[in-house]
């Protein structure tokens, strides 16, 4: 029989990938777990300190702040998800021309590098000469110093976060919409249901599996936000207190302050947070997600 040879081929073909994942993904997970219970010495090397890092983080003001900022950011970005549904629903209007043009335009922020995007928005949000405060001024609103105010900065970052994810999520929703059988709408039309009623009674319920997927992915990504904070907020800005996220805090500890053990503990806590919140999402899904 061929089967023994098939085994060998199977192992041979997955070997390069399995080896790479083991070295760059699996081993690092366990290593980070281990490091989180150690302290790095001045001259390299690690000493075991038990749960001291975790204890330190529990009382750390910056950690509490980072946790709060990250959760606030995640909530704000999730609040932007309905915008993607609206965009997808409009793109799905029968007979709409220019679909690919719209798709391209909405997708621009997704394909362009966060570095360029972050720096541009930072300029737009400038309190003195930024275009946003200028536009707000035209309608009589006195805009804040977005990037310098610890109470405001995270909102500015979240606006960019929503802006840059609308296109991606809209593509997912559009695919979901196109999977809804036409005859549901035909039946509803015959029953005299208007467009809006159809949207709330047919579209939204049948779109809940996609919505669930998008919400989970968006949440997991939002909990790991780093690029935008790093690019939009100066390391010396007072606004950092109000916008330092968990990954930013991790980055500071690991690669600026060289406190690897503490940083590893932050990463482990982030993993825990993501697992818990994702598990809650999966629990809640029974209450609102309709599978056909």
């Amino acid at each position, binding site marked *: 029989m061929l089967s023994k040879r098939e085994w060998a081929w199977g192992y041979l073909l997955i070997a390069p990938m399995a080896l*790479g994942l083991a070295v760059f993904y699996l081993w690092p997970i366990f290593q980070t777990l281990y490091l989180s219970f150690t302290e790095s010495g001045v001259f390299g090397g690690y000493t075991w300190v038990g749960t001291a890092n975790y204890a330190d983080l529990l009382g750390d003001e910056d950690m509490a702040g980072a946790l709060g900022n990250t959760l606030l950011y995640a909530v704000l970005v999730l609040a932007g998800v309905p915008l993607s549904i609206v965009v997808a629903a409009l*793109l799905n209007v029968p007979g709409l021309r220019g679909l690919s043009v719209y798709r391209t335009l909405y*997708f621009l922020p*997704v394909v362009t590098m966060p*570095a360029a995007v972050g720096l541009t928005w930072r*300029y737009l949000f400038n309190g003195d000469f930024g275009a946003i405060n200028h536009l707000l001024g035209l309608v009589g609103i006195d805009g804040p110093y977005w990037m310098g105010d610890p109470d405001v900065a995270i909102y500015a970052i979240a606006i960019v976060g929503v*802006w840059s994810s609308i296109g991606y999520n809209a593509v997912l929703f559009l*695919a979901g919409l196109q999977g809804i059988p036409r005859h549901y709408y035909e039946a509803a039309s015959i029953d005299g249901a208007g467009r809006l009623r159809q949207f709330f009674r047919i579209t939204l319920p049948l779109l809940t599996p996609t919505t669930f997927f998008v919400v989970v992915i968006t949440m997991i990504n939002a909990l790991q936000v*780093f690029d935008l904070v790093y690019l939009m907020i100066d390391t010396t800005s007072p606004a950092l207190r109000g916008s330092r996220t968990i990954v930013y805090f991790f980055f500071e500890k690991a690669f600026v302050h060289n406190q690897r053990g503490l940083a590893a503990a932050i990463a482990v806590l*982030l993993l825990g947070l993501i697992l818990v919140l994702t598990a809650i999402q999966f629990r809640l899904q029974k209450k609102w997600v309709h599978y056909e």
Partner: protein
Amino acid sequence: MSRPRTWPAHVVLAGGALVMVAPFAWQLVVSLQTLPESLRVPPKFTPSWQWSNFPEIFQTVPLGRQFLNTVVVTAAVTAGQLLLCSLAAFAFARLRFPGRGAIFMLFLAVLMVPGELFLIPRYEIMVGLGWLNTLQALIAPGVFGAFGTFLLRQFFLTLPRELDEAAQLEGANPLQIYWHIMLPLVRPGLLALGMLTVMWSWSSLLWPLVVNTDPEMMTLSAGLASLRGQFQTNFPMLFAGSVVATLPVIVLFVIMQKQLIAGIAFTGSKG
């Protein structure tokens, strides 16, 4: 039947599209202004065709070198991903071997873990290898990907069983079946993964920021980020650099958007 009215949809979509494009347009305009113009109150919304910003940014920072670094890293990572992911995906989808299910679950588990958990040990691997400030430090971890393996496996699974059976009867070994028969058939999957990988690799920031601190060895993403403090107020130059960094991906996206969109839509429907 009358044609449905689409203009209300157009009004809202066009308004939204304006918000999507405005920052890019504004970036382009400012990249062609002088420094004082870029700081004017109220803002000046027209360019003054200050083309010299572009050669100047190339002289101020090693932008040309960073561009080349980014191209090399992105090309290597994408080629590596396509080859290694498709090999593994083919094996998972079409070959039977003990432990296949368990190993695949392990791959999936890796997908769920946030990237920060890999960062410190990976950095130490690079220190150990003496690879800090080299391009291979950027390439090596990037060529391995659980997501790509998962994505391509779904494509391989859709192909009919008779294909391999027929080829097997002809005496083809699995590697020949993979290369000559299966790979051409999963082209849409390869294109989608290729596009996604180009996008991610081109834009990635955190890892390049950590391993390559020498401006000569930086990618565009990290290079731009490092300008933020240094040239904080010189927005025209900064945006000239941004335009150079973003334009290639935008062009590629416009050409390949169908494949990319298909790949993303796919992750949503089968994820």
